[in-house]
């Protein structure tokens, strides 16, 4: 279903999420906005790439991030954010996760195992049954004695948490607001 542009976005951009978040974190004083900034950077990159794929995706990603921060700073009249002026891609390279680390190989499996283990119990069980045992959502519901709707909600939550672990090394869940707080309550009740 994903288009070529979608694929490019996943392969060339999302792999840099951890580095992007670090950059945003270093250069933006408001932790609670990181999540929002990340999303905005992605939207800008995706939009621009629709007109022509950048030759150097990573450099383009970080340039977009820098522009966005500059726009926001201007609007918020935040005067001093010096590190931004010093930004050079090479600074990012230092602690950047190499795409290969999660694109392939045993590191990816290790990371995935860790991501799975970070899920709450029920959610972990649902994701496993669905992904590894390949049960349908309906069969998962039967197996666990919960409603299909609840299974669906666990899956939605699992996607969120897996994405956070896999792409951002869990930075946003520590620093940002929980992604779907209102669902958490429902699930706790469901459990």
């Amino acid at each position, binding site marked *: 279903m994903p288009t070529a542009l979608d694929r490019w976005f996943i392969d060339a951009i999302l792999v840099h999420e951890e580095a992007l978040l670090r950059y945003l974190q270093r250069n933006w004083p408001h932790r609670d906005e990181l999540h929002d900034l990340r999303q*905005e950077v992605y939207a800008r990159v995706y939009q621009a790439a629709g007109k022509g794929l950048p030759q150097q995706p990573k450099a383009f990603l970080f340039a977009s991030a820098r522009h966005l921060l500059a726009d926001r700073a201007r609007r918020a009249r935040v005067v001093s954010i010096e590190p931004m002026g010093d930004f050079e891609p090479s600074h990012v390279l230092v602690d950047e996760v190499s795409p290969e680390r999660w694109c*392939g*190989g045993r590191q990816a499996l290790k990371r995935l195992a860790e991501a799975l283990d970070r899920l709450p119990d029920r959610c972990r069980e649902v994701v496993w049954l669905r992904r*590894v045992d390949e049960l349908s959502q309906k069969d998962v519901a039967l197996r666990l004695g919960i409603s299909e709707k609840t299974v*669906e909600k666990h899956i*939605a939550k699992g996607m969120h948490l897996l*994405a956070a672990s896999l792409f951002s090394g869990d930075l946003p869940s520590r620093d940002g607001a929980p992604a779907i707080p209102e669902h958490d309550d429902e699930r706790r009740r469901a459990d």
Partner: protein
Amino acid sequence: MNGDARTDAERVAADWLARQDGGALAPADAAALEAWLGADTRHRVAFLRLLAAWDESRRLQALGAGWPHAGPPPRGHWATPAHGHGIASLGDDAPPLPAPPDLRELRLAPRTHTARRPAARAVAALCLAACGLLATWGWQSYHRVESALYGTALGGIETVSLSDGSQAILASDSLIEVQLSRRQRRIELARGEAIFDVAKDSRRPFVVDGGDREVVAIGTRFSVRRDARDLRVVVTEGTVRLQSPAGGKRGTRPTTLLPAGSMALVRADGVLVRSIPIADAERLLDWRNGLLVFRDATLADVAAEFNRYNARKLVVADADAGALRIGGSFRWDNAEGFARLLERGFPVRAAYAADSIVLASP
């Protein structure tokens, strides 16, 4: 432009994806999803990000392979040393080692080398060397014989210290039986390859029995490798003697002396000895450092070499691809990385499956 809007986009995206995961969307819903995705790029990127994570999670199957129970293993299952080792030592997408070895299943391997060995069995024989020391004592013509069996699973390398001070490094999927008596040190290489670092002991020759031939050393370093068809001996230090076993059925063959820097290939029809620089000889043993080193080798040979170490096999689909010449050193535990490298620099297309990587001409 507040944070809530964005959080909202992720929540809605997750809800759509979870619904889609439950079954195909009704046409009206599919249209609603399309409309939502088209309404704002932020919607689309949030959707793609979660979709990518969910797709990636399919690889959990690789972790689940070998877990015999329904439902997930306990938390931290893959972080424990035994299983962590599984992830660390197997190639990409290879199933992790399922459980610690059951020593009740320990048994002597058949001496004839069978060409195909199910990966499952190799895994079951996990770390025979690490934990499975089968020592028996007996009397044999007035001598006490100390005997032990060491083996490695596919993808494993083990260093074994023998009680005479010698050392053996076992390559992937290899098995040796060691018998040390007062008169002789005798090692049977049942399968695979091993590097021997022999402690000097002029009264007890160190004999490696490779089936058809014996390799005799006093104090030296060499490797012996046993394939279905041939035996390969590489000497990096000292001198070894290649000879027929005493009382061999097929009559005696000439004894060959192999100095350091020799490589001998023993086949049914004879022995081929090549003299190579010692550095090259050392390079042939680089697998002990995790590397496979090739110089102008055919892709077919390179693939076969990788396959000695990995459950996920490199399959060469056509003769053109198989004839490509490859040089360089590669980590043997990263067949996928090797395939990707090939795709970049050679006219080769790779198809990645869970248990194989098929290499074909485009």
